């Protein structure tokens, strides 16, 4: 199809691109479960929630057990230490990042939890970090605690024999690693 433009538009340069910026602001509702978690943080506590059917412990809980579609109604306090089930070394700066390169982001299964928490791993050089390694939270001073996961500054290695993590990335034995891996 040939588009016939009026005379006045014949030699006009085509518009190939427009920018239409948009900005919207929202009030985010944390909800019951996340509120429980964040209030715990203010008291220097890590509170998970368990499914009343399968007793899996989620931390932080979003409010529902995905296996059963019911509220995670039982509050479980966790000690803090956990096992690194996966990690990545970040070597590339991204927009807005304040971290010094390289640094480690870790997926941590806290002892007593069935799901993972993502957090920074510090006080360890990236080449020392490994799956199965025990880590513990390093908190801000009590006076500086706020209702945010940033009240835990990072996790650092804990001097304790490595745990056993299966191929799917779950801790199968919290004790010393057994040869051959799977329990």
């Amino acid at each position: 199809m040939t588009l016939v433009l009026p005379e006045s538009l014949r030699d006009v340069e085509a518009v190939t691109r427009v920018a239409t910026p948009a900005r919207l602001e929202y009030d985010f509702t944390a909800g019951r479960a996340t509120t429980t978690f964040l209030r715990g943080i203010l008291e220097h506590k890590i509170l998970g929630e368990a499914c009343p059917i399968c007793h899996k412990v989620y931390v932080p809980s979003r409010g529902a057990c995905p296996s059963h579609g019911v509220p995670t109604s039982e509050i479980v306090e966790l000690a803090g230490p956990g096992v690194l089930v996966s990690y990545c070394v970040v070597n590339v700066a991204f927009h807005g990042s304040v971290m010094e390169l390289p640094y480690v982001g870790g997926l941590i299964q806290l002892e007593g939890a069935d799901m993972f928490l993502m957090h920074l791993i510090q006080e360890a050089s990236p080449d020392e970090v490994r799956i199965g390694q025990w880590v513990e939270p390093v908190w801000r001073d009590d006076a500086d605690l706020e209702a945010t996961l940033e009240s835990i500054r990072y996790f650092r290695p804990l001097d304790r024999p490595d745990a056993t993590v299966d191929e799917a990335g779950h801790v199968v034995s919290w004790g010393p690693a057994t040869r051959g891996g799977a329990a």
Partner: protein
Amino acid sequence: MRDVAIVSFAQSHHRRAVEDLNEVEMLMPVTREALDNIGIGIGDIGFTCSGSTDYLAGNAFSFVSTLDGIGPWPPISESHVEMDGAWALYEAWVKLQTGAVDTAFVYSYSKSSSGDLAMVMSRQLDPYAVGPLWLDSVGCAALAASAALDAGVVTREAMAEVAARSRRDALANNEYAQLRFDRTAAAVLAEPDHVGLLHRSDCPPISDGAAAIVLAAGDRARELCDNPVWIRGIDHRIDPMALGYRDLTDVPSARLAASRAGVVPAEIDAWELHAPFSHDELLLRRAMGVPDDAVVNRSGGALAANPMLTAGLIRIGEASWQISSGESERMVAHATQGPALQQNLVAVLEGDR
């Protein structure tokens, strides 16, 4: 065609703002009730489809985290539409027609209160010409209302009558609605103009809420409940996106959808029309040939509770309740989406008796 019926419906008590619960916590009791009503679990469902939009939550992939509330593990067959739940129901109906499944679960929800709703809804306009003007959803409705008033196809008195009747019917019939009161049309007319020629009462409330429906085919429907409500016809159509291409005083896509769904107005004993603004109901009645003395929106409609992307699915659910309770025999349920009644879905529902 396979016979497909609504076998369960549940909805929340819609509120101006649900501030104590996140989306999954708000939705979970509703999805649970819809399944519990007929004594089944998510494992008995062949296909699940939901309707919502992350624009309302302001949170990417919020619809994925909401899935946790229905127990999607081990994995379920699931889909999502960025549309009112009525279109999720349509997708589920198509899936049932293929014969691949005998049951389907449909839900939708929204926290309309999280952002500036009218501004959020402006993002559904075309991003090149109209979006940058930030024409909001109330302004868009006011444009259509002015056009319809100018053309003489609606009157402010008739609009006020719809606004007053909707809240009065909600008071009498619908404990789930948000605006339930008895105020006269004269009181609506006495209100100052709100946006354009719309009074505040011509506009829907901002509502947070959720709804869920279970569909089943043939004998499975009869096994699951005593009063299945059959979907005898269903169709959806769309008018052009550009407001300037449309005659805002008419709703051709609703007329076409009604005709394709097999609506014969004289055979319908009550209507649930998804008409967020009072003039919307008048335009839809005209487009679909709804008789003047017809029973429309016994539930109070979207003017009494309007959780975005859910109020359409609620019309279908409300109609199913009115039929299964014996109040009506054959009803039309309608849903709309998009600016100024752009997209329309029409279903004809009928009971067994």
